[in-house]
């Protein structure tokens, strides 16, 4: 079995094991549903204070490192990256092993435009960086998306390395010394983006994630999401049903790349210093691990996976140099006991069907199926 087939085996067969939460929230009346969602989002914005909460604090706190630092520098970035990679890998079923390349393109574009070669403000750099990442996705995708499975995986793997090595060798890109003094996000009212307080960066990152989720949900439930799913399930059949498979695969690549680049701009704006060693191959693998661990093809799974993969090594700092080993063991255990990921992909629930049925039978409102 080829690598990508093994991988598809992992992503297929959606389980119903913990189908509970999301479905039940969806079944609630509108008012309680939205108040629950609002409450949940509010609690996320309070995340920097989580370690002060009894019990929860003990679980999430990261002894030895600043919890605030972990959630801003790592969790937010990984979650965003996992969301983007999930579009490519989870929805469209394209195995991308070089995703770190887009992340690097986003970060470097901000670096070049705000420090190395120009002095543009961070906010101006972000849309440009996202556009450049997207274009790099199209440039990579146009020749390579004619390949399938393992071949695509290998070419994308090469792409990630090409970006890193090019950055390392091009003096124009700062060479191995990298780029420093990158612009930071502008202060917004009481939110001062300084060096000491990480919270503003966290709030910014979380807001970006929520906006991305909003748009991704729209895509998923549209013709575009259906086309991606169809391509993942059976590319030939999809094309014979009138899906322009190449176009939609390219869109998946471009949108994934744009989100990866966006994560790169946040990273560059926070650390304000980047060099090629920030973008190693391992990071691509770790990003993929986040998506697979969380649940390939499920947006909430990708988010959880990104958060866990970012946070866990820090949580285990107490194990000193064995922390990566502990992290690895946990990953293996999750894959053994939940091979479909923490929150597996689900069969779409067609809520409107109940309405359709009642309108057909002419007995509006007679129970649900």
């Amino acid at each position, binding site marked *: 079995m080829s690598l990508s087939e093994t991988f598809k085996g992992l992503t297929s067969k959606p389980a119903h094991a913990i189908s509970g939460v999301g479905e039940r929230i969806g079944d609630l009346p509108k008012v309680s549903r939205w108040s629950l969602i609002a409450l949940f989002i509010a609690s996320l914005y309070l995340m920097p204070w989580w370690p002060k909460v009894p019990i929860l604090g003990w679980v999430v706190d990261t002894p030895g490192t600043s919890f605030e630092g972990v959630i801003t520098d790592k969790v937010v970035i990984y979650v965003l990256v996992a969301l983007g990679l999930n579009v490519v890998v989870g929805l469209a079923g394209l195995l991308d092993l070089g995703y770190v390349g887009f992340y690097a393109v986003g970060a470097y574009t901000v670096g070049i435009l705000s420090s190395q070669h120009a002095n543009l403000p961070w906010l101006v750099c972000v849309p440009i960086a996202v556009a450049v990442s997207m274009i790099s996705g199209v440039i990579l995708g146009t020749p390579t998306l004619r390949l399938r499975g393992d071949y695509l995986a290998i070419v994308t793997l090469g792409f990630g390395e090409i970006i890193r090595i090019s950055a390392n060798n091009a003096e124009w890109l700062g060479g191995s010394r990298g780029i420093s003094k990158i612009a930071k996000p502008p202060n917004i009212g009481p939110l001062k983006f300084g060096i000491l307080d990480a919270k503003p960066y966290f709030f910014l990152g979380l807001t970006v994630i929520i906006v991305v989720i909003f748009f991704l949900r729209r895509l998923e439930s549209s013709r*575009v999401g259906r086309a991606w799913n169809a391509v993942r399930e*059976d590319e*030939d*059949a999809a094309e*014979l049903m*009138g*899906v322009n498979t190449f176009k939609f695969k390219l*869109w998946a690549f471009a949108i994934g790349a744009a989100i990866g680049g966006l994560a790169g701009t946040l990273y560059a704006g926070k650390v304000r210093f980047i060099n090629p060693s920030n973008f190693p191959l391992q990071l691509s693998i770790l990003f993929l691990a986040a998506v697979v661990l969380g649940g390939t093809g499920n947006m909430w799974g990708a988010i959880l996976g990104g958060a866990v993969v970012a946070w866990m090594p820090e949580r285990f700092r107490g194990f000193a140099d064995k922390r990566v080993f502990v992290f690895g063991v946990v990953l293996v255990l999750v894959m053994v006991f939940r091979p479909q990921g923490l929150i597996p992909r689900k069969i779409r629930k*067609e809520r409107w069907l109940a309405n*359709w049925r009642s309108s057909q039978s002419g007995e509006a409102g007679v129970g649900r199926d």
Partner: protein
Amino acid sequence: MTDSLLSVDNLTMQFGGVTALSEVSFDIARGEILGLIGPNGAGKTTCFNVITGVYTATSGAITFDGQPLAGLKRYQITKRGIARTFQNIRLFPDMTAVENVMVGADANHKTSVGGALIGSRRHHREEREGRDRAMELLTFMGIADRAGDAARNLPYGYQRRLEIARALATNPKLLCLDEPAAGFTPAEKQELMELIRKIRAQGYTVLLIEHDMSLVMGVTDRIVVLDFGKLIATGSPAEVQNNPDVISAYLGVPDDAA
């Protein structure tokens, strides 16, 4: 045969040294149900694959609705109006039945990423149209009761019919069915025959590959017979049934006739 919808002209398809189709020519008239039969390996499915763009013909031409199909991509051929089902079912297993059909219906839709992101009016209209069309087709095929189930969880007969619904959703002029009755019980075959007649009554033209002779003879207007990649007979079911070449292709040539 004055008004032909599809005409296949001197079609040859070679795979390396193997000739799967050799100078095959036939026409399908608008509104007709044409049967394509032949022993195993005769080239029926290859013929389907060439028509729907899966393979590029070695030589010969296919004209559909007055225009040549050469050089078109598969999805473009589908959008021109040729839809098909598969001999071995190829649904999107983890998508619901209604989603499967909506993928087909999307062939007529224009919304893309932009429209979906901003939630444009056309996007909403097309989503609604897609749903309505899908449910209409599932009802027509008699499988609307399982519309919300994953295709993989449907019974076999439902899956076969779901494939037809999905193909019809692309709004084809020509519907190509590749052994739609494979694995069916006689009662189910009877139902399928009714269904194919109903589909034709709706104005579709049907090209049918089928092994089951009673079904082919009962439902088709005309039959094209292939054997070893060559066209050996065309005509009404009755004519084909009595054609000596067809009989020998299916039953072998008696020794004394040789």
